[in-house]
């Protein structure tokens, strides 16, 4: 009962924030914009035939056409809008949940209720997850339906990006709450989290460089350090890669082989990265990132439970 009340309250709080409606508007706008396009032989129709763009880009039929549409949806829409814009907006929207709870006058009443502090913390934490889950479901659900109904390409694997994007958000959100508890500052929580995200991505890129570029591997210590840090920190780039891999019918490497993408654009290095990331098992990517999140959440929970208000 208490837990449900907390989660419900977090959701009500999110409804009160303008950013909730901004995110909803973005979802509807993207789905609406997608609906205005249709891919026909030799042309792309915009706004139900108002404009028509002659192109032989989609003259190919069958599997390759599906792959190209999947590539547009997954790499263009999911990765950019959901994986970047959506996650940043979600972090901004939820970063204030804990600082507002910890405001003097609010926290006093909450802590005077017979609910353990860790439960209070976890209730708010999961409330934020629910907020993001709702948005991810709306966005992916709408774009999935448009892709299937309007373009005739059904991507059941794309639906997996709902939990995966919530996971990606949660890997970053744990940093946000860890910063918010001692600082009680929404701005600090957002900035540090975005900084951490850049750091995590940087570590993964650096490690990719080490593992695919032989000239880099002479720096043993740095290579080992990058591997160790990558092992510890959340694999944000990898989880996005997994989401994309599972969502589309074929990987971009396949598109290159099938002639869908200019081979000149697909460098040897990029292919190596593709192969390396494909080889990383999902349980390792998700599990080790969850372990990091669990440790950070436990520390945050401990700080939340121990401090005076």
């Amino acid at each position, binding site marked *: 009962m*208490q837990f449900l009340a907390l989660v419900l309250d977090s959701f*009500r709080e999110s409804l009160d924030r303008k950013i909730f409606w901004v995110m909803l508007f973005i979802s509807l706008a993207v789905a609406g914009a997608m609906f205005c396009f249709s891919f026909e032989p030799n042309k792309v129709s915009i706004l139900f035939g108002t404009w028509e763009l002659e192109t032989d880009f989609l003259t190919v039929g069958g599997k390759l056409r599906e792959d190209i549409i999947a590539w547009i949806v997954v790499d263009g829409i999911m990765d950019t809008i959901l994986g970047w814009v959506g996650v940043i907006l979600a972090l901004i929207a939820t970063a204030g949940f804990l600082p507002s709870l910890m405001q003097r*006058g*609010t926290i*006093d*009443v909450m802590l*005077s209720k017979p609910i353990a502090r860790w439960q209070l913390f976890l209730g708010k934490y999961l409330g934020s997850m629910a907020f993001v889950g709702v948005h991810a479901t709306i966005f992916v659900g709408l774009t999935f339906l448009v892709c299937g109904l309007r373009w005739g390409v059904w991507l059941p694997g794309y639906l997996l990006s709902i939990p995966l994007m919530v996971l990606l958000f949660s890997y970053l959100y744990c940093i946000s709450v860890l910063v918010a508890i001692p600082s009680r500052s929404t701005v600090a929580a957002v900035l540090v989290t975005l900084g951490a995200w850049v750091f995590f991505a940087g570590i993964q890129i650096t490690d990719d460089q080490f593992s695919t570029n032989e000239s880099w591997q002479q720096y043993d210590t740095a290579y080992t350090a990058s591997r160790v840090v990558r092992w510890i920190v959340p694999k944000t780039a990898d989880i996005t890669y997994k989401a994309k891999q599972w969502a589309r019918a074929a990987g971009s490497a396949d598109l290159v082989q099938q002639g869908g993408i200019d081979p000149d654009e697909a460098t040897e290095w990029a292919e190596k990265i593709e192969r390396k990331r494909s080889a990383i098992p999902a349980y390792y990517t998700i599990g080790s990132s969850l372990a990091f999140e669990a440790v950070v959440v436990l520390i945050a929970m401990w700080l939340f439970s121990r401090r*005076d208000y």
Partner: protein
Amino acid sequence: MVNVTEMTNWAVDLIDVRKTYGRSVHALRGVNIQVGAGEIFGLLGPNGAGKTTLVKIMMTVVRATRAYGTILGRPIGHRGKLAVTGYLPESHRFPGYLTGAQLLDYYAALAKVPRDRRRRRAPELLDRVGLTNWADARIDKYSKGMLQRLGIAQALMNDPELVVLDEPTDGLDPVGRRDVRELLADLRDKGTTIFLNSHLLSELEMVCDRVTILVDGLVARQGTLRELTDHTVEYKIAFTGDAASVHSTLASLGAKIEAGGKSGLVSIPGHNLSKVNETIDLLRSSGAMIESVSPHRFSLEDILVEAMGADANVGASHLPTENPASS
């Protein structure tokens, strides 16, 4: 009125409560307070005395550096008893996105009040605090007085055995204050223990059975209002004429003389009628004419000011506070 001497059980029994922030800020330095079941208890003291810290320790918002004793029979900090405790903090801040009815339901759910009881209790309490017409309005539309009324209602949603109210009449108009006083009296009649922390001494004077004065993190005075004021009664004798010849004798009796021109005022501390009569005799023997004799009972404000000035005595409760629960 609860008779302390008949008390066999304390609703709140705080023993040696200490709180130190950092290494050097001693907010509480060993507070002992007992509150009888079913009484209205007032906590008062100057700013920085440690009142809010003490209340927050009782409500588990702040952790004591050291604390013994019990609240509703369980050790201080026991979360289970919070289910039967209501709390209104000072300067509370309620989520503006909820309506009054939603807030009551939310806080009561956190207090483990079953849904059917919440649904029954919320309209009752909203009616009791005069907010029925505002039940479905967002809280960010409420005035300060309405927020205070709502705060009191939320503190009562779980039908508590103990209610801790920090500045409950803050922001209320005179009618609102009277309503709160009546509400507190009703609660006491039902057996609810009420712990009040307020700056409004006149309010405390009107409703409290017993009070504690906290000064500099220690109990300076504690007892029933009667007990405290009995200790501080004085008689004032107004006279005309020159009484200079008896000034030294009056001073030796412990009287304070304020003489100016051909009139004066003699204050005799304590409830000592023979001293009063002796003073009158002395004044009359000096040729002065007695204009009036009036007993003056100290108000709570006088007691507080006196306690704040009596730093040397701080910590020694002036009244016996025998604690059967801990003996």
